[in-house]
C-alpha cells in the first residue's frame, strides 16, 4: 500500500522549527537495524535531539515529535559511501579541487580545505539516494593525494559543521606508483618514520637543542606509519593491491583497499592480511568477474563496503550497487551491511553510524519497498533527526 503523496504533504507542512526538527518518530515500519536485533517487523524508531533514542514496537509519540506513519515502509540506517568526491569538484570553472597536480607527494594537504559545503549535488545526488555520510577523498592522480575527511552529506554554511571525523585517513594511489614509484613510496614512509623518531627524541630529551621543524608533509607520513591515519589506497589491479599489501607489511599501515576490481584473483591474500575493501564503483566495470568480486571477497571473510566514487548525481545509485552485487552472489544481508555497518566499522565510526540502535546518530533512510528491489524508492532521508530530503520535494525524479 503506497500513499507517499498524502504523507509527504503532512511531513512538509508539519516540519517544525529547528529545535524540534531533531525529533522524529517512524512508526510501524520494517526496520533493518543492522545489529544483532536484526529486522524488526512493524517496528518504531524514535530519534530525539538528533540521536536514536529508542528502537522497538509501539513507542508512544512524545509531545512535539514529528511522526511518520511507516506502514509498508522499510527503514535502514543512513547509507555510507566509503569513497566519494562530492563537494570537491567545481561547479563553475576553475577546474577540480581534488587533484593536486603541482607535486607527487601531498601528505600535508587536507581535502577538508577543498570541501564546498554548499555543493549543488549534495541533495539530488547523496540525500536523494539515502546516502547520509560521505568519505571524501583527494583524487588518484598522485601517489600521495592528501588527508581524507568523513562528512554528513547535508549542505551547511561551513565544511566544519559537516565533519564527522577529520582527518580520517591518507589517500594514496598505487596506480601512480608503478615500478620505481614503489621504491619512492618506501623512501617517503622511511622519511616519515625518521621524522617521528626525531620528534620523539627531542621531546624525550627535554626539548633541548634546536627544535625540529614541524613539517606537515612528513607529519602525514609519520601518522600513516604509526597507524593514527588510515591509509586508503586506490588499487584496481592485482599488482597494485599487492604493492599495497607489501607496504602494509613493511610499514604497519592501517590499510583499506579501494576499487579492488581484481580482488577475486587474490581474495585469499587480502583475507589473510585482514585488510578491508571499499569496492567499486561496480557499474564502472561490468566484466563478470568484477560483478562477482565483492561477493567473493565477502565469502572469504573480507570486510567489504561499496562505493560510487562520485562527484555528482551518480552518487544516488549506491543502493543499486548493492542490488547488483547481491544479484551476482553477495549474501543479501551482507550486501546491506556493505553500505551501512561495514563502512562504519572500516572507517572507525561504528560507535556513531551504520546501524539503528539507541545512542547512534539519527541518520535514517526510509524506503517504500524492499531495499533489494530495483523498483524501490527513497521516500525520506533523515540526518541527525532532521528530514533533509523528501521524495517529490523538487529535487528528484
Amino acid at each position: 500500500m503506497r500513499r507517499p503523496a498524502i504523507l509527504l504533504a503532512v511531513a512538509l507542512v508539519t516540519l517544525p522549527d529547528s529545535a524540534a526538527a531533531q525529533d522524529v518518530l517512524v512508526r510501524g515500519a520494517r526496520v533493518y537495524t543492522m545489529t544483532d536485533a536484526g529486522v524488526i517487523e512493524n517496528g518504531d524508531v524514535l530519534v530525539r535531539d538528533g540521536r536514536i533514542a529508542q528502537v522497538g514496537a509501539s513507542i508512544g509519540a512524545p509531545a512535539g515529535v514529528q511522526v511518520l506513519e511507516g506502514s509498508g515502509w522499510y527503514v535502514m540506517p543512513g547509507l555510507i559511501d566509503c569513497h566519494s568526491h562530492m563537494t570537491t569538484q567545481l561547479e563553475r570553472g576553475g577546474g577540480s579541487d581534488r587533484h593536486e597536480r603541482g607535486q607527487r607527494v601531498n601528505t600535508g594537504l587536507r581535502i577538508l580545505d577543498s570541501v564546498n559545503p554548499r555543493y549543488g549535488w549534495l541533495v539530488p545526488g547523496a540525500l536523494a539516494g539515502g546516502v547520509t555520510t560521505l568519505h571524501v577523498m583527494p583524487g588518484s592522480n598522485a601517489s600521495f593525494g592528501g588527508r581524507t575527511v568523513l562528512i554528513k552529506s547535508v549542505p551547511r554554511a561551513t565544511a566544519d559543521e559537516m565533519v564527522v571525523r577529520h582527518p580520517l585517513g591518507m589517500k594514496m594511489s598505487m596506480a601512480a606508483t608503478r615500478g620505481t614509484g614503489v621504491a619512492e613510496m618506501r623512501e617517503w614512509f622511511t622519511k616519515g618514520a625518521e621524522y617521528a623518531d626525531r620528534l620523539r627524541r627531542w621531546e624525550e630529551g627535554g626539548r633541548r637543542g634546536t627544535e625540529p621543524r614541524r613539517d606537515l608533509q612528513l607529519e602525514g607520513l609519520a601518522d600513516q606509519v604509526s597507524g593514527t591515519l588510515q591509509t586508503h589506497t586506490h588499487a584496481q589491479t592485482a599488482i597494485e593491491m599487492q604493492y599495497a599489501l607489501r607496504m602494509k607489511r613493511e610499514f604497519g599501515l592501517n590499510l583499506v583497499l579501494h576499487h579492488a576490481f581484481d580482488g577475486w584473483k587474490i581474495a585469499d591474500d587480502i583475507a589473510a592480511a585482514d585488510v578491508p575493501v571499499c569496492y567499486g564503483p561496480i557499474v564502472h566495470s561490468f566484466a563478470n568477474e568484477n560483478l562477482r568480486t565483492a561477493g567473493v571477497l565477502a565469502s572469504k571473510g573480507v570486510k567489504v563496503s561499496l562505493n560510487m566514487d562520485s562527484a555528482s548525481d551518480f552518487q544516488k545509485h549506491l543502493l543499486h550497487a548493492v542490488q547488483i552485487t547481491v544479484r551476482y552472489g553477495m549474501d543479501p544481508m551482507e550486501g546491506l551491511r556493505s553500505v551501512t555497518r561495514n563502512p562504519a566499522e572500516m572507517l572507525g565510526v561504528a560507535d556513531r553510524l551504520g546501524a539503528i540502535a539507541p545512542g547512534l546518530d539519527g541518520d535514517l533512510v526510509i524506503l517504500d519497498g524492499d531495499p533489494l528491489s530495483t523498483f524501490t524508492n527513497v521516500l525520506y532521508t533523515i540526518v541527525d533527526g532532521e528530514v533533509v530530503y523528501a521524495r517529490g520535494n523538487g529535487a528528484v525524479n
Partner: protein
Amino acid sequence: MSIAPVSSRARDATRRLRTAAVCVVLPLTPAAAGVEAQSLYVEAARVHVSPDRTLGHSIIQVRDGRIVGIGSAASTTIPADARRLTAEVVIAGLIDARTTAGLSSVIEAGDDTDDRGGPVRPELRAEDGFDLRDALLATALRSGVTLVQTGPGDANSIGGQTAIVHTAGETVADALVRSPSGVVFSLTEDAKTTYGARNRLPTTRMANVALIRQALIDAERHARSEDATPDAGREALGRVLSGETKAIIAAARADEIATALRIAREFDLPLVLTGAADAYAVLDLLDGAGVPVLLSPPAVTRAASGGPPVAGVASRLHARGIRFALVTGDLREGATLLDWVRETVRHGLSESAALAAITTAPAALLGMGDRKGTVETGRDADLVLLDGEPFEAGTRVRAVIARGRVAWQAAGLAAETRRD
C-alpha cells in the same frame, strides 16, 4: 603527533625588539610635506562632517595640514588675500583599506602588483614597489581617495606585506603612514589560476591552504627560536602571528570565508577578510567571530552562484552590525571606490552607512580613527569637494585636499579659487 604550539601572542622581548626595528611607523605630522603656513578656506553649502552629522552653509579653515576650525558661513570671516575654494558639498577624504594602487603602474612600467616567482611571498613589501605617479593611484586621488592600504594582489597564496600610504605626497617616505600594516593571503581561485595553468603548486584549494599553514608553522618556530637565521618572510608572518600587523585574507565563496576563519582560529590570527562576495551566507559565522570585512566589487570577488549581487551584501552586513568597509580590492582598472559605493547604495545601503564604509569605518580598521575619516577640528585636512551629494550618480569631484594641500582640482576650478 605535533609540537605543542606556543601561544602566538606570547612573543618574547627579544623578538619584539627585532620586529620593532624593521617596522616603520612614521609620525603623522605633515611638516615634511612642506605645507604652507598660510590658511586655506573651503566654503560649502553642506558639510557632511561625519556619517551622522551634516552642517549647512559652512566654512572650513585649514592650516598646517589640519582642520583648525569649522563655522557657519555667516559667522566666519575669510581674510581678503586668503586662498579659498568653494563647493556644494564637502566630505572627508575617502579611505580605501585594500587596494593595489601605487603598485600597478600599468601604463608606464609594467605591473608590479603580483610576483609570480612562487606562491608564498611574505617577504615582499608594498613600499618597495610603491610609485606615487602610478596611474591607478592618480585615478583614486581624483575620485576623492586620500589614504589607502595597498599591497600585492591576490595572485599568490601569500602575496606580501601591505602599507598604509597617502595618495599624495612629495616622496614615498612622505606619503607613507605605516609599513608593514599587514600580510595579504589569498584563498580564492587566483592562486590556483596563477600556478595551475603551469601544473605548479598550488592547483587546488587544499594545496593553497597547506602552503599557508606550513608557512605559518615555520614562522611560529622561527619566532620561538633563539638563534634563527634572519628571514624576512618568516619575520613578516611573525608580526601577524604576534598581532602586530593584520592577516588580510582574500576569500570570496562561503567555504573560502570559513577556511579563513579556520586558519585564523588555528593560529590566533588578527583576521581581516577581503573580497567576501558570499559573506551574506555566513553572517552568523562572521558575527560570532567578530571579523571585519573589506567588501570588494564583484569584478574581483567571485561569488558562488545563487546569491544576491555583491553590491547587495553591503546592506546585509550593515543590518547585521558586522564591521565592514568598502574597498576596491584587487581591482586594476575601471570603477573607482566612489562608483562602487554608489552601487551598494543602489542596492539598499543607507547613505550614512555608505559614507561610514569609506571614511570612519576604514579609518578605525586601520587604527587611524583619531586622525582620519571625519571633517572635524583637529583632524587631518583630507577633504573631498563635490558639486552635489556624494552618492548621486551625476555628482562630480571638483577638488581633493590632502593633508591641507590642494592635491587635485578639476580644470576650470582654479579660476574660482581667488575670486573676491
